[in-house]
């Protein structure tokens, strides 16, 4: 679906957070957008619920982790003096929930983070959410990929563990 608002300032951007190290990059990017265009930011954390649970099950631990992430996002945005609302969703499919929520909020941009990962065999891994959002979001989509050096550093740390 083409973006009819292409070239116009972003009024409302949805920031997709998932508790990964790329969240920081997503928020930074969102704050830059917000400062440039005076846009509103909505940070959304989608908890993926598998089929063993009902969609509205109380996933207490995951909810608390998600809440921490959203709180940190609010704190970062507050430091940057950028207004940010946060939402916690539970859904079967993260990409679909993001797109649906962006539509519901009439957002004109979605920002996602992408860790630098390669699959076994050397292919660059894009995951499932980003392709879904690329295909289905009616608005602009920004993907912030983490620097390769940072991902290598993270992998080294993981080996240490």
């Amino acid at each position, binding site marked *: 679906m083409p973006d009819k608002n292409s070239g116009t300032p972003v009024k409302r951007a949805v920031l997709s957070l998932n508790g990964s190290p790329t969240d920081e990059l997503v928020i930074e990017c969102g704050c830059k957008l917000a400062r440039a265009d005076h846009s509103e930011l909505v940070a959304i954390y989608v908890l993926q619920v598998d089929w063993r649970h009902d969609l509205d099950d109380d996933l207490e631990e995951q909810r608390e982790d998600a809440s921490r992430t959203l709180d940190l996002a609010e704190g970062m945005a507050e430091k940057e003096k950028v207004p940010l609302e946060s939402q916690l969703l539970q859904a079967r499919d993260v990409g679909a929930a993001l797109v649906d929520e962006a539509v519901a909020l*009439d957002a004109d941009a979605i920002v996602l983070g992408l860790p630098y990962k390669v699959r076994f065999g050397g292919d660059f891994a894009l995951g499932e959410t980003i392709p879904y959002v690329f295909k289905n979001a009616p608005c602009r989509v920004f993907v912030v990929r983490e620097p390769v050096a940072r991902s290598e550093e993270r992998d080294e740390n993981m080996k240490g563990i």
Partner: protein
Amino acid sequence: MTNDEGDKRPPSSPESTTPSSKPRGLSGQKLGNRRVRVERPHSEYFRYTPSGALEARPKAHEEVDSGRRVMATARHVLFGRPLASAEEIGERLSKKKALAIFSSDAISSSAYATEEILRALLIGGIGIAALNLALPVSITIALLLGVVAISYRQVVVAYPNGGGSYSVSKANLGRLASLIAAAALLIDYVLTVAVSISSASEQIVAAVPNLGPWQVAIAVVVVAVITMANLRGVREAGNIFAIPTYLFVGTALLMIVLGAWQILVLGEGAAYPSLQDSSIDIASMAILLLAMRAFASGAVALTGTEAIATGVPAFQPPESKNAATTLAVMAVLLAALFIGITFLASGYAIVPNEEATVLSQVAGSVFGLDSLGFYLFLTFAAVILMLAANTSFSAFPRLAAVLAADNFWPRRFAYRGDRLAFTAGIVVLGVLAAVLIVLFGGDTHALIPLYAVGVFIDFTISQTGMIRHWRRERPPGYRRRLSVNALGAVITGLVAIDVAAVKAPTSLIVLALIPILVGVMWFIHHEYDTAAEELEVDRSRVYGPPTKLSRVIIPVPNLSRAVIRSVQFGRSLSDDVRAVHLTIDREAAEELRRDWERMLPGVPLVIVETPYRSLVVPFLHYLDVMAPTPANTITIVVLPEYVPRHWWDRFLHNQKAHRIREALIGRPNTVVADVPYGAVRSGDGNGHGVLDRTSQDGDEANGGGQSRRRPDRPPRRFGWRR
């Protein structure tokens, strides 16, 4: 472009943050893409920080009680919205504002220091010729100012945490010297406020003589206004007070330049009779003593010099550098104004008299009497005299906070209020100054002899401390710095003796107060030390579950829902529960026993008759004598407490419970538990509590104490609303 059950709401709408009782199921664009929005009721109140701790947000600081909420609103209207600790950096002072705040005392003294010198010279018996000494004396004082300022610049760099002389002497001279320095300064700050505001109110009354009977009241109101301005925060005080300070400095410098032009270039000046023409030998002891007297009087110009060193943390970063620069600018300005005004007074041969101040005579000579410049300058001078008090309002609370942090002053003084100002210090300073003004009837001349003694004691201690500092640290070029401090210590020490002697016997009051204040600070420190020792925990120890038994005693006035709730609560704590009823009415007590045994079987009721009608004290003796705590047991006294509906109900209920609680504080192996019963708030979902009565029986059957928490508040553990 949407469906989502009409959910096309901007995120800032209130509904998006208000907790709802059920998670909202929302359908997606494609079939099966449903999602559920999870409310986070805690997010309005608390937020996780990167360290994993919770941070209380502004909503969590809002008062729950409606009366307190009204008070908080009034406070915010009066003093401004509360500032978060993170905003402290924004409250820091730029050099321009800091100069206005910390220097108003020192700079304002240029308005009267010249007059003090001239008056001291005039009463020496030598005549008007003695006034020729004014300029050399003022230059000598300016040199002393230079030495003190250089010394305090070194203090500012060496001790960036503030505290000035107190910090220097604490680090180098030990506890006693530091407490003497602190006590001397605290006393002098109070006097600065009292003197400057009394002086300002005298100026107002001089301008409008009809206000004479209100002079003290005017002074007290001015103290209150300055106190309130400072409670609004240091930055706002800077905004309020900066303009008058700079207006005074600007017009005074203009006056000096114009006057110097008139005297030196146009030759419009006059001269005092020469000292050589008088019968006095200018090398005689009399002249020396007269000069010393004038020096002691003019030395009041140095008061306030130390304030910047006390308040270094109030500066924007780099704090030390900015404070040192501000101190240098202040010293240069003060010296220029002081010498300039004295030069003009000598250049126009002005003689102090009762009709007009020296400053007004100088202004009249330069600008012309009744000119606009004359009136503007005198107005600014009156305002700066009033604002001299503001320096103390910045320095006193900071010094008190440093002392409190070291446990030499009540800890309350170290806490910042809503506006990040040291509220307790500001209020106490305002109250003490107002009391002093009332006690001395707002008479500046009565207060002046008390003034400036403490500052010179403080200067001396500080400079001596810096000598030891340099001897210990020995950085490159330390000998030069050490010699500056040594010279300063000797001179300020001599001036301290000189000022105390010249202003005796009144000045002795200050000399007597200093050791008293030092004693008080020592006592406070001892108390805190003792409490800390008592509370100290052996951190290497691991604490297992409690080994002591417990038994419950409940004083019951009657058989009420509050009592039943307390008994059930007591039963949840221990199997050993007994009630004690103290009475003056035997028949009523028997009736109570009958009902008690029927309604609360298994809980013994002890009836104590009190023919002397006292209820609380016999209960305490009952505990000691009839029911002494067995070994290895804790007595829990459960007090049924009625929760009043209104604030004024508090005067009508629970008086005995309060007295029992107070009497039991500190009793060995005894714990007091309040069990409230009565009006509780139930939320209407919008954060507005409404009063309701508790449902009793169910809760009582469960034996739980009633929670005071509002149902519309977030749960203590962050569960999730479903």
